[in-house]
């Protein structure tokens, strides 16, 4: 760019608005670069609708799970509110110290999930109890001043806007200087109540919004542990001074355990609170419900393979306990599947899938042919080649749907049978059973064998009871096979019940002598009935359409390993740079690699202390070779200024990355901070 100025100097140019980057629509990411431009948009649309549905379902689920705790919390708050109003002048209330009602809401350590809970909580409060509900976070309240400011701002700000909506002659706060104190809040509250009373003079008690006459001021501390204890103590002390005028209620969101309250607040402060405890469901139970609703159902065509599910579950169990992150992981898998698998266009509802299968292009058909599951099927049914491939596809898709419809109920049956066994041979949670069923034929495993043995040892009543449970699980299913299975099961139950109890005891004595009695036959055939439906999905043709299986991609995205990436970049620069000249055998670095890679490689050969000069010499030799100098010539490996500067930069970059640091133990040496190497 040029200027009209004649003087030399620095000029600031604002970036021109003309060269705006073309923003790419989201769905174009699906079409760009892939061969089948036609299906990209459809895949994107299917993906979007599926995700919307998953999102809706999880939200509904979360609300259902939270209703119990939120209802009890609401009860508590309503009780407190009414006790504020009915504060009479009788002897006890005069004598009692006035405490601030406080709800300690124990939500577990999965902090990312709390947002949803708090959001629905404050919505609920605003709707049914009070317009004055504010929530504060620790990070915005470093000092008492900030906390007060936030509370006042949110309370009075909301109040003012409400005023504008309702009437014109509302009070207006002196905006120039609202002093940040609770006494200002108290005045504001009084005037608010006065205007409300004027507006509805005839209605005593419940007023027009369903709020009580003096709605409480609710302060929600979202992350109690992260607050500075001093700030909280002072805030509570201040609020307690005004409790007669302002009906405060606190809600503490606690992640660990309620005893933190006692750790953070001294007795002199905690004696000002009237704390009641509310405990939410454990997050593992939450996850189990989410898995049950989203994954163990034939409702969603999109499926996760065992490895992917394992990655997601292990991130949950080992790292964060966060259901929100689990659902995010599911979303990523969904996106990746529809993005990377062109045939995923068939992964949708039955009718649409059949429709798409008819319209498969030549390319797509070729891709179907290449699918491993399809190829293995071809070996057995060579006649398939004769039929039109689209028809075969349609048949396979129908089969896949049927398979899923039968798989999940039977899985649930098996789980209900085995989950009560001692030591849980097939896993305590249904997801463990699901994973092992997906991996291989479950009836061939040792765990299954031991589970069956334990089942045989069950008393008759117990066995009948658990078989009845299975029948209950199968009942709602409409498919033919399930109906016949149910019929069979009920026959077995009837047979069991006919078995005489006397005979039963007698039978126990001869347990080891004669194990092929009637009883056992029935038992094992009842169970073998279940297993024919539990073949792993990999054996199903066209399973690649529905199953997302690249667990490595998911793991790389969700559970990043910064250290490993740095080391890969340094030791195998080709991996990231994709430059042909950098391609080398394992363990070696090409001499044309970036300086830092060469310095890194050389430093691996050293001990704990590295002599800088030796290092520089070695570096100079390597770079000279890269320049193509004759190894016998005079200035081969000679250190010139440029090389020196490049070397120093590489070393300081390594220091920044934490591989070396300067040391005072020896002059001209640096210390290595990592072990290993050559």
């Amino acid at each position: 760019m040029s200027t009209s100025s004649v003087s030399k100097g620095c000029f600031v140019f604002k970036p021109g608005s003309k060269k705006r980057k073309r923003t790419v629509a989201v769905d174009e990411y699906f079409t760009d670069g892939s061969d089948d431009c036609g299906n990209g948009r459809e895949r994107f649309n299917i993906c979007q609708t599926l995700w919307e549905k998953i999102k809706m379902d999880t939200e509904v689920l979360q609300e259902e799970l939270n209703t119990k705790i939120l209802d009890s919390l609401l009860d508590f708050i309503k009780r407190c509110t009414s006790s504020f109003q009915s504060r009479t002048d009788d002897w006890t209330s005069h004598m009692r110290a006035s405490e601030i009602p406080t709800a300690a809401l124990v939500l577990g350590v999965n902090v990312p999930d709390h947002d949803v809970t708090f959001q629905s909580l404050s919505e609920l409060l605003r709707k049914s109890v009070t317009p004055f509900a504010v929530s504060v976070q620790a990070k915005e309240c470093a000092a008492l001043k900030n906390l007060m400011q936030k509370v006042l701002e949110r309370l009075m700000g909301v109040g003012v806007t409400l005023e504008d909506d309702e009437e014109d002659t509302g009070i207006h706060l002196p905006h120039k200087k609202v002093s940040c104190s609770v006494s200002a809040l108290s005045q504001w509250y009084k005037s608010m109540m006065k205007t409300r009373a004027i507006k509805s003079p005839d209605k005593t008690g419940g007023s027009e919004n369903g709020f009580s006459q003096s709605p409480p001021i609710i302060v929600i501390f979202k992350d109690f542990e992260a607050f500075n204890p001093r700030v909280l103590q002072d805030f509570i002390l201040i609020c307690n001074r005004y409790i007669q005028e302002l009906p405060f209620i606190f809600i503490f969101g606690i992640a660990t355990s309620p005893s933190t309250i006692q750790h953070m607040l001294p007795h002199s402060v905690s004696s000002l609170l009237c704390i009641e405890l509310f405990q939410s469901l454990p997050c593992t139970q939450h996850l189990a419900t989410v898995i049950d609703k989203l994954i163990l159902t034939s409702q969603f065509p999109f499926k996760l393979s065992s490895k992917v599910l394992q990655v997601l579950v292990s991130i949950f169990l080992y790292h964060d306990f966060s259901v929100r992150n689990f659902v995010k992981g599911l979303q990523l898998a969904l996106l990746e599947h529809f993005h990377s698998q062109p045939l995923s266009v068939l992964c949708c509802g039955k009718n649409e899938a059949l429709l798409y299968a008819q319209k498969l292009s030549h390319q797509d058909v070729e891709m179907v042919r290449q699918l491993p599951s399809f190829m293995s099927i071809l070996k057995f049914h060579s006649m398939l080649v004769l039929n039109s491939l689209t028809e075969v596809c349609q048949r396979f898709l129908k089969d896949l749907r049927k398979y899923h419809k039968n798989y999940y109920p039977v899985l649930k049956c098996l789980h209900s049978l085995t989950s009560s066994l001692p030591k849980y041979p097939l896993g305590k949670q249904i997801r463990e059973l699901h994973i092992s069923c997906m991996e291989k034929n479950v009836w061939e495993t040792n765990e299954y064998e031991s589970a069956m043995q334990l089942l045989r040892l069950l008393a008759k009543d117990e066995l009948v009871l658990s078989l009845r449970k299975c029948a209950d699980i199968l009942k709602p299913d409409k498919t033919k096979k399930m109906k016949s299975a149910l019929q069979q099961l009920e026959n077995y139950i009837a047979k069991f019940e006919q078995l005489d109890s006397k005979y039963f005891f007698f039978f126990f004595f001869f347990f080891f002598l004669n194990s092929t009695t009637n009883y056992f036959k029935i038992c094992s055939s009842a169970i073998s009935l279940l297993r024919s439906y539990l073949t792993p999905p990999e054996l199903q043709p066209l399973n690649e359409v529905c199953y997302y299986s690249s667990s490595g991609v998911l793991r790389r995205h969700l559970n990043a390993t910064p250290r490993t990436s740095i080391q890969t970049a340094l030791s195998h620069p080709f991996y990231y740079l994709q430059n042909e000249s950098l391609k080398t055998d394992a363990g070696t670095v090409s001499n044309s690699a970036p300086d830092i890679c060469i310095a890194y490689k050389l430093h691996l050969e050293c001990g704990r202390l590295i002599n800088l000069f030796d290092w520089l010499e070695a570096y100079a030799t390597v770079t000279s070779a890269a320049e193509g100098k004759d190894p016998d010539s005079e200035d081969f490996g000679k250190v010139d200024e440029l090389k020196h500067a490049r070397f120093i930069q590489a070393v300081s970059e390594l220091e920044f990355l934490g591989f070396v640091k300067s040391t005072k133990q020896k002059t001209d040496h640096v210390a290595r901070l990592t072990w290993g190497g050559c």
Partner: protein
Amino acid sequence: MLAGLQCPGYPEAKLSSVSERLPCREGQAGTLLALMGEPEQYCFPSIFIYGHRATGKSHVILTLLKELEVPHAAVSCVECVSAGLLFEQVLLAMFGSESATLLPRSPSLSDFVRIYRQFCAQEPAQQTRYIVLERAELLRDMEANLLPGLLRLQELVDDNVTVILLSEIVWDKFRPNTGCFEPLLLHFPDYTKAELLQILSLDSNPSYSPELYSSYINILLGVFYSVCRDLRELRHLAALNFPKFCEPLEKGEAKESDTHKLWRNIEPHLKRAMQTVYLREVSSVQWEQQQMEEKEATALRGLSAHAHVELPYYSKFLLIAAYLASYNPARTDRRFFLKHHGKIKKTNFLKKHEKTSNHLLGPKPFPLDRLLAIFYSVVDSRVAPTASVFSQISSLVTLQLLTQVGHDDQLDSPKYKCAVSLDFISAISRTVSFDIVRYLYDFL
């Protein structure tokens, strides 16, 4: 006793009503009155009153000032998040809202003095004005010149004004190292048991005789006097438990004269109250409900009963590693975590200062590297050093299970301390079947 309060310049009737309202504090009130002198006389520039919580400091001084209708401003320093608020409230009480609006943004002490003088010139003091600052210990955290300035405010504004500071801390802890004007010190001693009895008996329930109530208070003090002398708290407890005390009377099982029967009824109840509601393990409302429903105390679990925390698998091991790093000397790591460490006997190994138990000394800080090294050796599977392992460390810090030592912004080798107890960590390690006691140096 009632003759104690005498001061010229104030009407007799008011003085006697004041002394009625200040039981057991006649001596202190008399001293204060003597210091105040006649209304128009200058008083000592600053008075510092100290004594434990609920010993009647604010009550005495505010009753005196209110009843005798002396111009005064009473401010609690805990409310004043900045000095500006303090000035504003004082000016508001002294000269009305007009003066407070004149204060500039974030005013300094000299602004305050200037405005004070300006209004003081308009309406000079007929009587001594008093500024009462409750919880004065918080003044120390404000600007350094505030406390010395307030102590000699009389000189600064050239007016008949006295600053009274109330605090639970002795004056020695206040004295700034630059020196300042020494205020007059006045101590409020704790109430004795007899005095507590006298004061608490004053507010008797109207539906029962005062004698019954005072005998109830006697029983209450017998249980609680050893742990709590806070008048406010005792009164609260008295109110909470009185219905239970009266229960036999209501049912007609006992008469007011059956003191022994009443005592037998209430004493175990009070003892239970001491362990639960007094510590706020159980909230007052829950306690009252429980009384009404006649349930056993075991039905309600206190707050500290819910100590269990469910953590992700690796967080548990990180916490265990942090505990080991905090309570084992760094030199012993070789012994615990290396396979071939050779035999090191504890006695030879000990340095002199390490003979005391590390658990008595409390957790020691350790660098991040050591934490991770121990973590990798205690966790039974290979763990990749992923970003989520590191983020778990910081979430443990926000959950206050670990504390970061030094500055938050220290990127280079941050140091931590483990902040959980042995019971807690044993419970955690039991869930992952890790025998932590075998790895603790103290228990070798």
